[in-house]
């Protein structure tokens, strides 16, 4: 007995050692990778205080200082109160990003939630087919999406103007007319909003469908028996029950639309007259076209703060503490 117990103890110790070795073998490279991440983050944070350009040599440490001078919070002061071209372009980009994001969110929610609700109410075989097709654009390369929509928006040969002409309207230069607008927003912005919406709605739909499927049928039946109208069932039963999903979808949609880049870069590249210049595009151009990396880093920091702020706000407003 003694020997067996002793043996067991020893093997337990051996097991702990081999487990420990495995844990160390994984966590040490992981920590190194994380250290690199921290270094990158620290560098990004340092850059926002410098007038840094990769074209200049600068100081000994990461090229900071010297010909890349320290400016403190100068970038931020310039952004929000400066009169330079880049400062006013930043403010315009910020405004355009807000317009874009706050137009996308309600449009996306209305379209995806109602289509998901309708889709959830129909027979199973069709459901899968519809869902698949609605999901197709999500997988499509956004460059491809942009090119397809550009050809649809073509002022001469595009389908959208063809439809407008067919109904006797005046054709619009969707992507290049700086004056034409709707609800105070330039048509070019609406054009990219529509293209983005088209690419994106399948994603939220799939998530909503999954959430709607999880609602117990008994609750809907109870509402039906109590004489609730479909609208009442939707607003009083469905919406509260999918609130956690709704929160997730709102946050994710906001996050991605604040960081929109691909579609706009390809379709308009910020034109006409910078009316579709969004923050990511402005950051990209400043960093990689004009070599203003310090300025661009400061801009991305502002974008990051906005995104964080919106996320936290939405979590506060839409959070629920109960489950069903």
């Amino acid at each position, binding site marked *: 007995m003694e020997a067996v117990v002793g043996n067991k103890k020893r093997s337990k110790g051996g097991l702990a050692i081999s487990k420990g070795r495995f844990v160390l073998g994984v966590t040490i490279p992981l920590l190194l990778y994380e250290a690199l991440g921290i270094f990158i983050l620290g560098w990004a944070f340092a850059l926002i205080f410098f007038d840094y350009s990769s074209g200049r040599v600068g100081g000994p440490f990461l090229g900071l200082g010297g010909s890349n001078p320290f400016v403190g919070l100068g970038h931020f002061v310039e952004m929000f109160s400066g009169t330079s071209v880049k400062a006013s372009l930043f403010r315009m980009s910020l405004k355009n990003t807000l317009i874009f994001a706050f137009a996308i969110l309600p449009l996306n929610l209305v379209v995806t939630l109602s289509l998901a609700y309708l889709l959830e109410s129909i027979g199973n075989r069709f459901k899968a087919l519809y869902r698949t097709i609605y*999901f*197709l654009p999500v*997988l499509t390369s956004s460059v491809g999406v942009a090119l397809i929509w550009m*050809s649809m928006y073509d002022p001469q*040969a595009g389908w959208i103007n*063809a439809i407008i002409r067919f109904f006797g309207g005046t054709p619009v230069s969707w992507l290049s007319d700086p004056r034409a607008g709707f609800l105070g927003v330039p048509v070019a912005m609406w054009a990219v909003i529509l293209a983005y919406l088209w690419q994106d709605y399948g994603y939220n739909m799939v998530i909503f469908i*999954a959430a709607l499927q999880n609602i117990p049928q008994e609750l809907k039946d109870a509402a*039906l028996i109590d004489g609730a109208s479909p609208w009442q069932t939707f607003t009083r039963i469905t919406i509260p029950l999918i609130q956690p999903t709704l929160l997730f979808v709102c946050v994710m949609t906001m996050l991605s639309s604040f960081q929109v880049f691909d579609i706009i870069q390809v379709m308009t590249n910020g034109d006409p007259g910078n009316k579709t210049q969004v923050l990511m595009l402005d950051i990209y151009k400043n*960093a990689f076209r004009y070599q203003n990396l310090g300025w661009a880093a400061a801009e991305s920091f502002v974008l990051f703060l906005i995104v964080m702020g919106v996320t936290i706000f939405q979590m506060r407003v839409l959070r629920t503490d109960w489950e069903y």
Partner: protein
Amino acid sequence: MTVHTLPKSTSAKTGNSLRGSLLAGRFLTYFILTLGLSFTLLPFVMMILSSFKTNVEVLRVPPTFWPENFTLDNYIKLFNDPKLPLLRFYGNSAFVAFFNVISTLFTSALIGYLFAKFEFPGKKILFGWFLTMMMIPTQITMIPSYLILAKLGLINSLWGLVIFSAVDAFGIFMIRQFCETLPNELMDAGRIDGASEWQIFIRIILPQLKPALATFGILHFMGSWNAYLWPMIVLQKVEVRTLPIILTWFNSTHTGQGALVMAATVLIMMPILLVFMFFQRWIVQGFTMSGFK
């Protein structure tokens, strides 16, 4: 099942007018869904039809729907253009996607398994720290990452696209979730048989993770294939570019040749659409899982 028949039986008991309005509602539902469906499909249909038209026909006002002279010229031209070695660009995209998927699958499996099945001091802190780091958006890290690649001389190298994407928070999350459902007996059995921890991971755990890895791998493949901003920053020479960047370059150098550009678009989307057709169920499931952790 009885639950599902309940609405039907109640509607059968009520009058004809209600049944009529239910029928109308059903009709309206299908009508709206089909309308949305057409709106979703029409741009694809237009792209495919345009790619079979001539460059003259796509400029016509009003536009033709069906190609007047159905032609494969655009596709033939694309494959025979010496300035556009398409296979090379497919190769670039495939190279990047392959290494991105392989490396993230490996790290996700390993780290996910570690966080699910092992207890060690500082685990919670490490995991929390890890996730926070992963939540930092690209626009913050993109500039220093670019500067590091420039220092390492990896600008214009396809490896530059791989090294910073070797670890993925979503993948780790997903695999950790999946690992937690695996019984501990699996590992214990291996340990009793004298297998080392690495052997247990490779021989016992990895095979168990197959479905989760497949789902995540497909999603990651598509993300890599469609990536635009970061590849555009890193790959500045034409010959090393991946497909989406080539597509915008091709578009800007072939203005007025709409049909040709649409054919190029079709070719570049094709691999993704094929992958989707084959793995559709897993993909939709994967996207849903990402929504519910």
